[in-house]
């Protein structure tokens, strides 16, 4: 037993080095944000001599960072709200019916898990253009609802199956309609699954690059990954101080969120995997 404990400590310390190694790029990104260009080029690995904030000011103004942030927040929030509402309702309905069509719908939806995005992306742009959804935020979040919901429906479907019917039955007998039963009884019971869905989908939507890249053209509408990447290739090429600062600003919202919600985020990933 003693040997086992000692072993755990040695392994624990080794894993500490691994974790440190994983953190190195983020560390260098952070320290170089606070250096002028000359120091970034000549003393890249050194800790900053002074707390230089010009880079952040410059990138903030130049990339219109606040606008990018607002776009990312609204696209992510609306998509998440849509996904949660639409997929919990359909997950509930599909779990409580056993018609032939139920099975068919489930296997129809499962296609997204098998068919990758690129099989769809070229015609999708055309379809969106025909429906004047291209270059709009609402078009973007309808697409996220279409692509994100099937996974969420399966998670909700599994979760509803574990809820006993008796509660809905008594509500029905008391005269509550299906909508009221759903909103007052079922949806609150599903909230642990809702938080898992929100976590998994927000990691994907917030960080998505390809879909905004092919659907958003106006500067004013761009999300953080797209807006920052554009700046990086354009004006900031070779201006490493500004480039690396924009990387930090791009990852900062999620890193901060992660700092405070680490337990929930990792928990959400774990639950998503085991249930999925």
């Amino acid at each position: 037993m003693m040997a086992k404990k000692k072993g755990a400590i040695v392994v624990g310390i080794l894993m500490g080095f691994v974790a440190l190694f994983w953190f190195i790029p983020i560390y260098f990104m952070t320290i170089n944000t606070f250096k002028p260009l000359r120091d970034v080029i000549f003393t890249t690995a050194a800790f900053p001599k002074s707390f230089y904030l010009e880079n952040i000011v410059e990138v903030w103004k130049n990339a219109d960072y606040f606008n990018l942030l607002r776009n990312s927040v609204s696209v992510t929030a609306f998509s998440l709200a849509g996904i949660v509402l639409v997929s919990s309702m359909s997950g509930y309905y599909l779990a409580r019916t056993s018609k032939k069509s139920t099975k068919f719908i489930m296997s129809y939806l499962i296609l997204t898990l098998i068919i990758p995005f690129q099989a769809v992306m070229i015609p999708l742009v055309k379809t969106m253009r025909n429906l004047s959804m291209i270059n709009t935020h609402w078009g973007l979040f309808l697409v996220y609802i279409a692509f994100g919901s099937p996974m969420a429906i399966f998670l909700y479907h599994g979760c509803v199956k574990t809820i006993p019917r008796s509660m809905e039955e008594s509500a029905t007998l008391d005269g509550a309609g299906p909508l009221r039963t759903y909103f007052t009884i079922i949806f609150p019971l599903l909230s642990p699954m809702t938080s898992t869905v929100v976590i998994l989908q927000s990691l994907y939507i917030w960080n998505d690059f390809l879909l905004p890249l092919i659907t958003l053209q106006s500067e004013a509408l761009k999300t953080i990954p797209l807006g920052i990447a554009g700046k990086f290739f354009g004006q900031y090429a070779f201006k490493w101080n500004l480039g690396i600062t924009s990387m930090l600003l791009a990852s900062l919202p999620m890193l901060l969120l992660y700092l405070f919600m680490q337990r929930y985020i990792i928990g959400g990933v774990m639950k998503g995997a085991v249930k999925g």
Partner: protein
Amino acid sequence: MASLRKKSLSNDSIFGNCWWVGPLFVGPILIVYSILFAFPFLQGLYYSFTNWTAINPNYSFIGWQNYKEMFTLDEYFLPSLNRTFFIAFINVIFTNVLAMLFAVALTNQFRWNNTWRALIFMPNVISMVVSGFIWKFMFGEILPKLGETTNISFLSNSWLSDPGIVAYSIVIVSVWWGLGYIMTIYIAGLQGIDSEIIEAADIDGCNSWQSFFKVKLPSMLPVVTVGIFLNISGSLKMFDTIYSLTGGGPGKASEVAMLNIYREAFVFNRMGYGNAKAVFLTVIIVLITIVQMKLTSTKER
């Protein structure tokens, strides 16, 4: 009366006679999904047999010509496909072996393990595009400088400009980005194993290797199947990281299939031809994932 009530509540009748419940609850997603996923998918199959370009709105059916061109005339697509397999293969091996190793190490009793886990997962909350840029900085500025000061010449490799090395550099970035997620899934799998089984193995005198390969791994195979599936399909679709890290360069040395398809369709505007490539890549991804699912699920039994 009682039996009647019971009957009326069984199965579908939780929703009573409300015919509108189905359309209201399931209708919205079916409409959105059909218009934005299923319909474009079918359209894509059709377009792959046309010469549709973004410049000329009139296109016509040209049979298998796009597919023929892909295999005979196109000097970049097949190499990009090979490169994708190569990168995906190394990436999946490294990511999954290391993720499993770390997962086992971090399920030990050690005070700091949750912190280590959080640090290793951290890259996953950063977008892949940004990760590519961060590593462009690492490979271009940090590592060579560290190599100078420490005299380790390995660090001063031309990570991104040497066509023979660039694929490995990409794997480094994508292991760094993606390992935390897979590792977390495996930790969940390990924690889900009934502790009595492990204790029984301990009592029977299994050493750690035996208890891992004979007891733990078999009982968490469903989770491993999910992990490998996510990793394989993610690697075959790799786009963001390479777009920002190398842009496919030097030359075409790191142009993967998705980058090739993206350029064909959205830079060179050959939508029909790009679609043919996308359909072909899709078929490959679907086949590989089916084979993988079959392989791991037969082992599950």
